[in-house]
């Protein structure tokens, strides 16, 4: 990219006769450069104020007490059995729905392999996936109450037609297990959105090479398809995990009482000042979430760098 810029820098300079020097050495260029740097200021200021500052505040409040003095007291709250259980809930819920979502989503992507890229099917799947993956939250909670709520369509149908009561052991929809189905409902579309570009990047030449060497469909997937796609698959799986882990709206709208997952615990800490008799617990919980997210996203970007090898 720097190479494509150099001719411009030369054209700005004293002409083609002089040997190319570093663009920064030219006075005219550097004056233009300083002018251009001003252009970066508004966005930088915006990012500092509304992304960097809130994040730093969120993380730092975990380290201060109500008088503003530094303390690690809030962090010890992360070891509290209640908090540990919420983190445990969040982790298993995210892991379970990520695995199921990734498998179903990958299967669906496989089914779309070879479908017309500009066709009606692809357009509808893309748009529907976008809506369901990004637009869920409150409305997703409504949908599942209407489906498997106490008077939900499926609940009633199973009860009247088959005599099956899905809530025989108590109503689980408004507790942590009730989040599994809604979460899968937004995980699968996200998998379709993020994983299908990887499948599309499988080169037809590889299938031809496989055929030329006498390979069949099984050997194609065993020796080419699966090894090439595996890093992308696990990368998308991690992204799904991160997505479920940070999701708040669905749980907030669905769960009736208690704070079974970390985002709900943060809300409780934010709205009721003291949880477990501690101030600034929200900051400590936010720190805990960020640690998990950073680890997950770091592994994700490593996997994606590996996957990029085959996507040229």
């Amino acid at each position, binding site marked *: 990219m720097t190479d494509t810029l150099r001719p411009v820098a030369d054209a700005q300079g004293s002409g083609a006769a002089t040997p190319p020097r570093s663009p920064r050495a030219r006075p005219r260029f550097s004056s233009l450069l300083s002018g251009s740097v001003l252009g970066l200021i*508004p966005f930088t200021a915006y990012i500092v104020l509304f992304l960097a500052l809130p994040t730093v505040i969120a993380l730092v409040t975990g380290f201060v007490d109500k008088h503003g003095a530094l303390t690690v007291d809030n962090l010890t709250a992360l070891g509290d059995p209640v908090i540990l259980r919420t983190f445990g809930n969040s982790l298993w819920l995210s892991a379970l729905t990520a695995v199921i979502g990734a498998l179903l989503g990958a299967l669906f992507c496989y089914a779309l392999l070879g479908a017309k890229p500009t066709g009606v099917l692809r357009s509808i799947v893309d*748009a529907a996936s*976008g809506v369901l993956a990004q*637009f869920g939250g409150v409305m997703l909670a409504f949908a599942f109450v209407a489906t498997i709520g106490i008077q939900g369509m499926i609940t009633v149908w199973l009860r009247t037609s088959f005599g099956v009561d899905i809530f025989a052991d108590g109503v689980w929809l408004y507790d942590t297990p009730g989040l599994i189905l809604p979460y899968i409902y937004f995980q699968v579309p996200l998998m379709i*959105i993020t994983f299908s*570009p990887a499948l599309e990047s499988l080169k037809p030449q590889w299938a031809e090479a496989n055929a030329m060497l006498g390979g*069949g469909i099984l050997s194609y997937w065993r020796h080419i398809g699966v090894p090439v796609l595996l890093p992308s698959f696990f990368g998308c799986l991690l992204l799904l995990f991160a997505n479920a882990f940070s999701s708040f*709206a669905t749980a907030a709208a669905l769960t009736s009482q208690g704070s079974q997952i970390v985002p709900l615990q943060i809300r409780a800490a934010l709205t009721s000042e003291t949880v477990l008799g501690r101030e600034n617990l929200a900051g400590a919980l936010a720190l805990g979430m960020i640690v998990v997210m950073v680890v997950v996203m770091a592994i994700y970007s490593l996997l994606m760098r590996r996957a990029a090898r085959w996507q040229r």
Partner: protein
Amino acid sequence: MSRAQAAGRTGTARLRTVHPGPGRVTRWVIVAVIGVLFLVPIVAMVEFTLRKGVDGGHDFARWATVFGGGLTPEFKPIFTGLGNSLLLAVVTVLVMLVLLVPTMVLVRIRFPQLQRVLEFICLLPITIPAIVLVVGLAPVYSVVSKMFGSGVWTLAFAYGVIVLPYAYRSIQANLVAVDVVTLSEAARSLGAGWLTILFRVVVPNIRRGLLAASFISVAVVLGEFTIAALLNRVNLQTALLVVNKADPFIAVIFALLALLFAFVLLLAIGFIGGGGRPGRRSRRRAAASALSPVAPALSPKGSA
């Protein structure tokens, strides 16, 4: 038609047998089974809104109420919320267009060495959950309220951050595809200044990317709940939750309408990208990438 399939057709019969995609029947079975499973909750929502009291049966009474203007004042929050969300959508798109677009163009043309930094910043909101951001936004907004008042539109500053990954991806795909660097060099050698380059050369060439970025931003803003709920602002989603307590049936009708609207919006992104010209795979990809919060692969060159 995919390249794999095309290769299968032009190749020998033997090549066709190793085409890695599923057969026609397998494909439609998978699509149908998963598709139907995903339609069930939507159908259940529709069925829910048609229910006629406790003694069973279905009618369109509630839909008639909603569209006949027969809503009682207790549903006012929903219109307040809808109005607020639409206002927020417009301001967020403005924030995105005014702050992000010139910066992306500038970095692309003038500071390519900052490309990776910009990409990192723009994708950062994926790693920072909204619920974490809100912990730090609360004190920031107590200052913002003093400066700009406590109008709901100020939320758009926060929303501008959460739409960054989506907006960045769709604009960047377009910036790379039209080779803005060469275009701006051509314009500069003809004596154009910076504003001319931005508005008369770059913007017309990336209008598909800008449109896709705007649409996805609108969809994200209309679906946003976390920040509004915890900063005690009223938007469409928080209003839906309030109205749901009074009358769940009406709330579900509005939820269905909102879902439908978002679906149409995203379908439009597909058509902007596809442009109705078959064979332009790169455009379809650019359009589809707008829906994805991340690059298909964070390639080392950072020019996804």
